[in-house]
């Protein structure tokens, strides 16, 4: 399906096309990687809604990126449970290893580093989201292995690193 077709399919789920702005932005971001002005305007035009409505949402919700992000967006949770399990040290490790600070992207465009509020995976704290996957029970060694895995993925030499096993019942 084209982006327009996907957005139309999403809009069909609601009695109001304004409701489809958030789903449409998620579709557009998946297509373009981020949401620059022309993409926001295209979304507004497809839905036939005011452009300001689309701008309002794109700048309110943290999962929408109006600026480009790296190929791998490392989103480290540093809320209370992850903080108690060492997230602060992991952030320092990532900053030192990648040579960038929070909110920055490496020069090669490979990694963007962010901290995020709770990812809702506190049972495997500290946890990080990269793309669609959660990586939990992190320590410095596992972080290093993950970065290597992502670098290998970038040159097409490996598949996505194995996500953390979920331990839903304290096992």
């Amino acid at each position, binding site marked *: 399906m084209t982006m327009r077709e996907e957005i139309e399919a999403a809009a069909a789920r609601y009695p109001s096309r304004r409701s489809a702005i*958030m*789903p449409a932005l998620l579709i557009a971001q998946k297509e373009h990687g981020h949401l620059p002005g022309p993409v926001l305007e295209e979304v507004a035009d497809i839905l036939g809604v005011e452009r300001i409505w689309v701008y309002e949402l794109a700048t*309110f919700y943290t999962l929408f990126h109006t600026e480009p992000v790296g190929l791998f967006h490392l989103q480290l949770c540093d809320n209370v449970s992850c903080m*108690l399990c060492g997230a602060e040290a992991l952030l320092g490790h990532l900053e030192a290893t990648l040579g960038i600070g929070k909110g920055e992207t490496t020069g090669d465009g490979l990694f963007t580093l962010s901290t995020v509020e709770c990812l809702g995976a*506190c*049972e495997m704290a500290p946890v990080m989201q990269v793309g669609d*996957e959660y990586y939990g029970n992190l320590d410095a060694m596992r972080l290093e292995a993950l970065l290597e895995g992502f670098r290998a993925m970038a040159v097409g030499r490996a598949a996505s690193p194995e996500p953390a096993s979920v331990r839903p019942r304290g096992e």
Partner: protein
Amino acid sequence: MFESVLLKNVDLPDGHLLRSYEAGGGYGALAKVLREHTPEEIVELVKQSNLRGRGGAGFPTGMKWSFVPKQTAKPKYLCCNADEGEPGTFKDRIIMERDPHQLIEGLAVSGYAIGAETAYVYIRGEYVTAIRRLEQAIAEARDAGYLGRGVLGSDLNFDVHIHCGAGAYICGEETAMLESLEGRRAQPRLKPPFPAVAGLYASPTVINNVETLACVPHIVARGADWFRGIGPDKSPGPKLYCVSGQVRRPGLYELPMGIALRELIEEHAGGPLPGRKVKAVIPGGVSAPVIPETGLDVGMDFESLAAVGSMLGSAGVIVVDDTTCMVKVATRIVEFFHHESCGKCTPCREGLNWAVKVLRRIEAGEGTAGDLEQLDMLCKGIFGNTFCALGDGAAMGLRAALKHFSDEFVAHIEEHRCPFHS
């Protein structure tokens, strides 16, 4: 040993698939409801069970359903609050990832009870696996006739759609969720009118949490007496407790409502890490005021926790041990609320910004003698003066930390350093 009901399927390798759910008797409650009961009887059954909402506020579910006007020309909507954003909480994610049909059956029974033909599951965008699993499960349920037109050959038309959030904690507040679903910034609405009367698209709307809806098929299958027979009279039923932080066995535990917090931590979650002692526990996500170790014999239910100045909230239990600085914990909690404030009202937007600055100063050893008084003044200015409960949650959390761990705050100010860092 307590029989696991809500988590019965979550450890099955294919617990998310329809065949697993059906093999365990799944969708039997929906079939029974359509065959044997009127919508009014289901509302009455849920009232009798005394099921209270599992999202945080603990409002009686059957009563909430009964507020929906029976005679109305407008469509009625059911919204599932799956925007699980309270730090320390992950129970709904695990239900949706590992047993999504349990939620779908709960939605269908609840939709029948309130007369809704459409349900939206508002699920936080970070939960990619849960979204994917729930999408698959909805498609399976449609193909099997559990959703769609003429559910199981009955007159019921009912369908479920997923609406993905995009990273805003305030969407967990029910009226902000409705704003978001309507395509606006998630800022809370003034109540009344309450959503049951004028909610989504100004139509009657019921909003229930994932865990609440997951309880409904079991109440139908086993009866209100079974449910009411578990835990305390005023807060009955099985309950999911999320345990995380500095504890040996973090995880999700299904136990009776009302279990002692100490038993949950020490016996089920394995107690503190080797060589350490539990210092404090946040019992219900970061909105719930912290409890010092001496208070851990409290029951994990709405009334018992309220009686000791805390709350059950989302039952996200965060364990803090004796190596940790409570000023740092309090600072991180207030930073969270400051970050997530939607900006609609001044006490929350400005007050939390101010509180964060003072707390960071104290934690860095640069606090002054008047800072604790100033924090107290800020809590008074925020609590009870904000549009929704976000500001209250921050103020309550900070007040509890100041009350129970004042010695640590004072030590930071007097020693001009954090005593937990050399």
